[in-house]
């Protein structure tokens, strides 16, 4: 991989220009639109980070909010003791440690164990944090009073998103990214190519978790009050999965196509139907699963290059017969 090749420089340069332009948004938008922009960018980071791991491996992680909440909680606990950059480092460390533990205990196994584990992980972490707060610190809920404005949050998130996209872009061209794609296509083949399957999966899972943790940490000052129920709200994991799936988790910019329409839709839904939010969300989800299995990106690719589909379907059929004999 050469850094100086034009096919590397061009997208990075275009991206840099777009991000530089986006950084001036606070000069035009009022605080309502800034708050909306923060939602969009934070979901963009979460959904892209989610897809970075779950897209190629097809391991559905339902634990986004665990890492997000860990980040937010670290800020609530340490925010007034340390400088904010240091707090971010601590949050990142905490998220990494948890991701390593989860990754090494479940990613050796079949995907379904991972899904189940992450499915309940939110509940577990929330219970443990609540238990700790009740029995050790003896107070439920914490206040976050930090001297960080809405615009600061926006800029930090934007920077985080830029770093994430760059990471994803470099990753797509690296040996690690290639190994991950092979694992996604066929794990047995990957093993035979000499890829340490578990280590690659854990590395990617930790990387994606790190970005989720930082998002939670950056956005925490927006809330001023945090308790375990707010910080570890399972709905967030769900929203992130839908957004990534709508966009198409197998392309770097795919999730973004799901994030923008759905963040706006959720904004309308929470305002107009606060009591029916969960039902409508479930319906949106069903529509995506049944009608748009490959996401918007998949739809686009299907109509653009029908030949490619027949080519890529041949390994699927061989795997099918292989599985039947196994």
């Amino acid at each position, binding site marked *: 991989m050469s850094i100086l090749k034009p096919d590397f420089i061009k997208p990075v340069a275009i991206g840099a220009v777009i991000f530089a332009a986006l950084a001036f948004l606070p000069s035009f938008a009022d605080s309502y639109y800034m708050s909306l922009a923060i939602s969009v960018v934070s979901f963009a980071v979460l959904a892209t980070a989610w897809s970075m791991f779950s897209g190629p491996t097809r391991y559905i992680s339902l634990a986004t909010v665990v890492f997000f909440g860990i980040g937010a909680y670290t800020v609530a606990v340490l925010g007034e003791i340390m400088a904010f950059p240091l707090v971010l480092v601590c949050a990142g460390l905490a998220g990494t440690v948890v991701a390593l533990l989860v990754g090494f205990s479940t990613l050796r196994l079949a*995907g379904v164990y991972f899904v189940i*584990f992450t499915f*309940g992980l939110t509940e577990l972490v929330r219970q443990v944090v609540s*238990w700790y707060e009740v*029995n050790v610190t003896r107070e439920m809920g914490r206040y976050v009073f930090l001297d960080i404005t809405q615009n600061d949050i926006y800029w930090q998130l934007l920077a985080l998103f830029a770093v994430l996209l760059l990471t994803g872009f470099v990753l797509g061209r690296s040996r690690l990214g290639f190994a991950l794609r092979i694992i996604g296509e066929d794990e047995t083949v990957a093993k035979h190519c000499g890829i340490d399957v578990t280590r690659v999966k854990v590395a990617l899972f930790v990387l994606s978790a790190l970005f989720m943790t930082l998002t939670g940490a950056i956005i925490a000052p927006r809330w001023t009050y945090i308790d375990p129920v707010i910080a570890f709200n399972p709905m967030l994991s769900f929203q992130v999965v839908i957004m990534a799936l709508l966009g198409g988790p197998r392309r770097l910019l795919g999730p973004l196509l799901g994030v923008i329409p759905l963040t706006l839709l959720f904004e309308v839904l929470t305002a107009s139907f606060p009591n029916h939010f969960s*039902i409508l969300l479930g319906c949106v989800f069903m529509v995506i699963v049944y009608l748009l299995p490959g996401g918007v990106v998949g739809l686009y690719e299907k109509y653009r290059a029908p030949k490619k589909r027949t080519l890529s379907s041949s390994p699927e059929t061989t795997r099918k017969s292989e599985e039947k004999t196994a």
Partner: protein
Amino acid sequence: MLSYAIFSGITLGGMYALVAMGLTLQYGVSRIMNLAYGELVIVASFIAFVFMTSFGINPILGLLIIIPLSFVLNWAIYRILLTPLVARAKNRGMLEVDSILATFGLLFIVQGVLLVWFGGNYYSYDFMNNAVDVFGAVIAANRLVALGFAVVIGLGFYLILTRTRIGTALRAVAVDPTSARLVAIDVNFASCFAFALGGAVAAVGGVLVSMFLTFSTSMGVVFTMKALIVVIMGGVGNLLGALVAGLILGVAESLVATYIDPGLTIAVTYVIFLLVLLVKPSGLFGRATS
């Protein structure tokens, strides 16, 4: 104190085992990883609650209505929602992913409907709440009744699967769907039947649990998770394994709740789950795969 903790652990564990038996059927035979499973349990609890408080029908009689109702409902879920996914899936992995996503959506819809109707409060009703003395432990009669029914229904279920023609067909599909077709088993019908039967067992579990526990609309997720953990611990498709694993989980939870802290029950579940995953991922009684 100890005998009480153990007995309430056994009742709880019996419920887990029963609920997990339904899930192991849905996952083992129909190959559907149903994340909305716990919601079906809770829906049954709420129906039992409404029967008891609004119509004065006691939960045991209620079962006569709830079992066929949930069987039909689950049949419909499989036919309408899941058959397209089964038809579309190219292999087992894809079906697993699709069914996880679809039932995850279903989970939020069911939970949302319950939330609109019942709100976020905890519910319970009074049924056979008189104390009974068992081996020195004072226990509410409803727990005993629930345990008794769990044993009877679990046993009946076991006999259906091992002694009848359709039960044998179901087990054949669980072992190998492709070969099952060769001996003239209608795999689609068997999957649908297993899914519906599993759902009916979930409903029984929900009704029995509602007799002695308080429940809320958000508890479905916890039931799904515990049922999944029991299924994995016992080995997928293994009824006896589910029974043993369910009891272990129930007793461990009850002991921790009594002696350490009731706030840590999920943590216990997870520690046990992790231990099983690390030591024997195929489950306590599971056959080793690959």
